[in-house]
Structure formats: structure tokens, C-alpha cells
């Protein structure tokens, strides 16, 4: 199987879906002539033309609002947000309109829209351009939130997202476009709302997703050298959340940590830990620990930024703590 980058995997998914369904079109800032800020849509403008690859003004509420309207009348827009931090400018559309239209119109409308948004820190973009606010969006029923951690999942999940009749927020990580992995060519669908065991182990469960997966894999390799075998469950979809593989793994290991890049308070980790306590209390053998970003606006300074973000050594330390 071909080893390709996350960028290529996402690009493949978009192209295959655009080839398959003429209702699919792309809109966003610099997605057309420039080829996308992260070069995901390079070549698309030439191939599909300005009608299907639309450069937009710098106005996120307009981008998402227009995408919702197009989706309601039968198109399948893939709207790109240059960074997820700009989603706050379109917050009403993203959390208050898109997720609720189907419900409030009694099923007369669907909103088959995908918002591709780039999240995460680590590229010294400053506090306002480096956030990981995934949990905020996962809070709203009606909005599907997907965030892959491997190229294979990125391709399979994006294709499923484009075919979904629900609005999907598809979060990609700014530092992961060069991550390589094996990706099946051509038609490759991964169902939304299915967590996956990415590494089998017996001593503890690491629950994570997106960038946390990359860090956890690294940490697990280190732990393995010391005889500790971590099982890693990748959530892949934050809403709807699939707890089954998490609980199955936890019932085996009885000890867990949750790794996310966002802040710890009110985060994804808090949700996972609560669910484990609620649904597998009798299997808890040690307190479950969250590994997350330090509770500060992310610094610009490289050393400080790296110190504030969760890193593999933090995961290793947490793993040892729960195994104490």
C-alpha cells in the first residue's frame, strides 16, 4: 500500500468525492488560485474551475452561512476555515444554525456540509491562532465533530463526512500534514462515530485522538522499552462519541490516561473520564489522569510553546503515575 502524507490523503479524498459527485464543491480563503494555505487543494482550481473551487472574502460568517444555504438546497459544500480559531467569527452559523436546522424544520431540510478546519498549536502562530477548541464544538448535539490522527483515517473519514447528510466539522492538525502512513487507493470509507484501537497493549489504556495519537504512539514505544505495554484507543470522532472500544480496553487494563491537546478544564479528557467512571466504575483500579495543554494562552516563544503543549514525556509520566 502506498505511504502518503496526511496532506495527500485529504487531497485524495476531496478529489475522489468531487469526481464522484458534481454537488461537491469547495469554498474558503485562498483555496483556489493559491491552492490552500496548507496546499491541500493545490491543482484543484485548474482541474475543477472557479465554480467548484471558490475563493471567498476574509469573512468566516459569510463562508459558513453561504455553505449552509448551499447545503440546504442540495449542494455538498466543503467549506475550509484557514484555522479553527476563525470559527469563532462564524460561531452562530456553526453551532446555532447548522446543527439545528434539520431539527427545527421538522426534517424538511438537511445540511450536508463539511467544514474543514485547521487546529492545534506548535507552529509559533501566537495565542489567537494556535488553539484546540475541539471540545467546545463537540458540546453541541447535531454537529458531528471528526478529528483524525492518521492519513488513512483522514481519507476514509473525510469521504464519509462529505457523504453524510449532517453538518460535519472536520478538524485537521496544523503540524500533521507531513505525517506519512499507508492509505488505500481509491474508494476507502471509514464510518464516522467509531473509535479504534491503534495499538494493542495490556497494562494501561491511553485514550486520545488527532495529535495526541502521534504523541501517544511515541510515548508507548518508550514505555514498551521499560516493559509497559500501553493500549491506545483513538477516538477519531468526538461526536457521536464511541465509548465501546474505550470501555472494552479499560475493562482489560483497569488503568487509563486521556491525552488531548486542548486545555484540561472542561475538555475531551473530562468527558472520557466521566464516562469511564459512569460506565465501568467497578473496573477502576487507579484514578484516571488527563494529559492536556497547560492552562495558559499558548505562548509564541518556541520553548514556552512546547512547554505548554502536552508532550510524549508528559504521557510517559502520567502512564507511570496511574500504574503506581
Amino acid at each position, binding site marked *: 500500500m502506498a505511504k502518503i502524507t496526511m496532506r495527500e490523503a485529504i487531497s485524495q479524498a476531496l478529489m475522489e468525492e468531487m469526481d464522484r459527485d458534481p454537488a461537491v464543491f469547495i469554498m474558503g480563503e485562498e483555496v483556489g488560485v493559491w491552492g490552500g494555505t496548507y496546499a491541500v487543494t493545490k491543482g484543484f482550481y485548474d482541474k475543477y474551475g472557479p465554480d467548484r473551487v471558490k475563493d471567498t472574502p476574509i469573512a468566516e460568517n459569510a463562508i459558513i452561512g453561504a455553505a449552509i444555504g448551499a447545503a440546504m438546497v442540495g449542494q455538498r459544500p466543503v467549506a475550509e476555515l484557514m484555522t479553527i480559531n476563525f470559527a469563532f467569527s462564524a460561531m452562530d452559523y456553526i453551532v446555532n444554525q447548522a446543527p439545528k436546522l434539520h431539527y427545527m424544520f421538522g426534517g424538511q431540510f438537511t445540511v450536508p456540509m463539511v467544514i474543514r478546519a485547521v487546529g492545534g498549536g506548535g507552529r509559533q502562530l501566537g495565542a489567537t491562532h494556535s488553539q484546540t477548541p475541539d471540545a467546545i464544538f463537540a458540546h453541541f448535539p447535531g454537529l458531528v465533530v471528526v478529528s483524525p490522527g492518521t492519513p488513512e483515517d483522514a481519507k476514509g473519514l473525510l469521504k464519509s463526512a462529505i457523504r453524510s447528510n449532517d453538518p460535519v466539522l472536520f478538524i485537521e492538525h496544523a503540524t500533521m500534514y507531513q505525517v506519512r502512513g499507508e492509505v488505500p487507493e481509491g474508494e476507502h470509507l471509514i464510518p464516522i462515530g467509531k473509535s479504534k484501537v491503534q495499538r494493542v497493549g495490556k497494562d494501561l489504556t491511553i485514550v486520545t485522538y488527532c495529535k495526541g495519537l502521534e504523541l501517544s504512539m511515541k510515548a508507548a514505544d518508550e514505555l514498551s522499552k521499560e516493559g509497559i505495554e500501553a493500549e491506545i484507543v483513538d477516538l477519531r470522532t468526538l461526536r457521536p462519541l464511541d465509548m465501546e472500544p474505550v470501555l472494552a480496553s479499560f475493562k482489560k487494563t*483497569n488503568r487509563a490516561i486521556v491525552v488531548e491537546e486542548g486545555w484540561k478544564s472542561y475538555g475531551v479528557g473530562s468527558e472520557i473520564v466521566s464516562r469511564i467512571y459512569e460506565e465501568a*466504575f*467497578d*473496573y*477502576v*483500579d*487507579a484514578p484516571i489522569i488527563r494529559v492536556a495543554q497547560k492552562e495558559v494562552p499558548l505562548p509564541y516563544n518556541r520553548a514556552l510553546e512546547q512547554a505548554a503543549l502536552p508532550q510524549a514525556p508528559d504521557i510517559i509520566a502520567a502512564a507511570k503515575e496511574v500504574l*503506581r
Partner: protein
Amino acid sequence: MAETINMPKLGFDMAEGTLVRWVKQVGENINKGDVLAEIETDKATVEVESPAGGVVLQLIVNQGDVVPVNAPIAVVGVAGEKVDAPLVESGKQKADVKSDEKPAPQPQGKTDSAPQALSTPQPPVSSLQSPEIKASPLAKKIARDNNINLAQLQGTGPGGRVVRKDVESALSGGQMSKVSSLQSPISSLPIVISHEDEVVQLTKLRQAIARRMTESKTSVPHFYVSHEYKMDAVMAMRKQINEYLPDNEKLSVNDFIVKAVALALREFPNLNATFAGDKVVRHGAVNVGVAVAVTGGLLTVVTKNTDQLPLRQISGDVKQKVARARDGKVKPDDIEGSTFSISNLGMYDVENFIAIVNPPEAAILAVGSAREVPVVDNGEIKAGWRMKATVSVDHRVSDGAEAAQFMQSLAKYLETPVLMLV
């Protein structure tokens, strides 16, 4: 033909027993020898086996009732069989038993009938889950499923939390092997800050301990002899032997002490004896008892003919009986007939202590911790294993010089432990 089952007499001084729990219910099939009920006597909770097979037709007394020895407690017969009228009548008799029974001091402010108050102590299950025990939810669940008393486990998690592996190692016999020394559940009773006086009704076991200890300390003139033992050889031999034994069969330091005491008693029959007015009975058998802390008190489990058994067999016997004692499932035979007792507080980091003679025995050995301390050897200070022990003796039976020689004989075995193997 229906058969009536009576409250058994499980000791020569047993007058009554508390029916703690019905194991079989009316309508259940029962084989001869199956456990029908658990009853609490002065000494322990024991299981009552059915002398007949069939179906349980009637349970005459309620859980918690105090029943005189030989009074009917249940009827076993063929399914559908009519229970004879007199037997049904005895159900009423039971009520009389209750009201006749006006035991001991009534706790103040308590209006419950006394038998009920007496019945509150530990049916084994109730002691399993005390909220004050620090244990993970998983450890609690495994303990609950396997009838293990968490209070008796040593937690290895942070802050002494009992975690899965602690319960599992107890299940496989690992931790239980440490139990030859006293581990007091009392230390884990809830610490409640209250300004009210609390009145705690004595369990039967506690009452028995109170009576017997008072009897001993007021009627037996005690004297005490202490000795410090060089334990290096025992520690080394134990380590060597344990390397070849499975986890659940590893020898404890206490096993060596039990064996050494038994051998020393062979040489000092006067300490393996009972004072009897104008004579002393020197027992033919050496049956060493080991004190075990159980919920609300302690029991002495006995290994018969201790001097005749190899170490490994002593160890296994003690382990089994201690486990039964802890579970409240002790058999009368487990706790009867000791001729000398050992009380070992070694696991609590106790330097030395003094025990009260356990009548009708003539002596008891109190054992402290084996610890590595600086010792003088050929004018040089080195590290060595030392353990202090004190024997308490009935002065009517023996004197200081004999007790001191006994302690020296014990030193011979503990310091040259290979003697225990020949």
C-alpha cells in the same frame, strides 16, 4: 419422614448459639453434609452441616435468634411432606426462647430486644465492605465477588490503597501467607469525630475474650522471660527455601517460630501443660496455637502434633486455618485443643511485647519483629537480624529458670535452624 435439626453443641461449655445466617432457604434441596446455616458460638462463627438430605421444609428460628443447645432450628424432609404439628408449634417456642433470653447488660437507649443486639456481629459478608477501607472500585468488586475481607489486605497502591493485584495475590494465597501474625481489623474501624459517647454491644467473641482474659490475669500468677534471638540463619534458610516454593506456599518467619517452639516444648514438657488444682497435666501432644486477629477479636488456630510435622505442612495448615478464621468459617477443630500459644505482632514493627496466658495453657510466647540491627561480632559492629520474644508463664506450674532454659532451647533451633529439618 421429616427430620428435625437441632442447635448443635460445639464445645463442652457451649450453652447456646446465635443463628447468624441461613445458607439454605425453605424449598431448597439439601444433601447430607451440605451447609445449612452459620451459627455463632462463644468462639467463632461455624457452619452447621445438615445431618439429613432432602428438601428444607421449615426454618424454625430467625436469623439473629439466640437458641439454646439442642433446641430445634430446622426441618428437612421430602418435598411436599407435611410438617408435624409439634414442630410447627416449636416456632412459637422460639418466641419464648427470645423473651426468656435476657442476656447481659442492655445497651443504654437501645430498645431492641437483646438477642437482636447480640446478633449484630459479623455474618461474614457484612464485614467485607467497610467504607473506610481504601481500595480501588475494582479491588472492591473482586473482593466482593470472592468473599475476601479487604480490611485484612495490605494495599500496595499509592497511600496504601488496595488495588487489583493485592486482592488477586490474596486470592492466590500470596498475601494470606503473611497472616500468621496478628493483623488487627480494629485499626481500620471508621474514624468518626463525634462528641457523643458510643455504646458498642460486645459480640459473643468479645465477651468470651473478656471473660477468659480476666480469669487468666486474676487467677494465673504470671511471670515473664525475654530473650533476643539471632535470626540471620532462619532468614537465610527461609530465603533459600522460598526460592523453590510457589507463591502460595512460601514459608513465613512465623512458620519457623512455630516449629522451633514445638521442638523446644518436647524438651520442656512442663511448659506444655495445664495447672489442675493439686496436679499439673503435662500434655502428651504438642499442639501449638497461633493467635489470629479477626473482626472484633482474636482466635487461636491450632496445628495438632506440631512437633511431628515438617515446616511446609505446618505452614500450609496454619494458612488454611487462618483463612477460615478470617472468613468467619472456622471449624471447631481449628480452634480447640492448643497446649501452648504464640502471639506474633512482628508485622507491625513491634520490638517486644508481653502476652496474657491463654487458659488452660501454662505459657504463651509473644514475638516481636525480626529486624536488621547493628550487632557486635568479635569486637566489630556489623548488621545482623535480631528478634525479641517474651514468654509469659503460669508460676504455679513453672519457674523462671525453667522458662529461661526453654528460651535458650528455642534459641538453639532458631539459630541453628537446620535442626528443625532433622
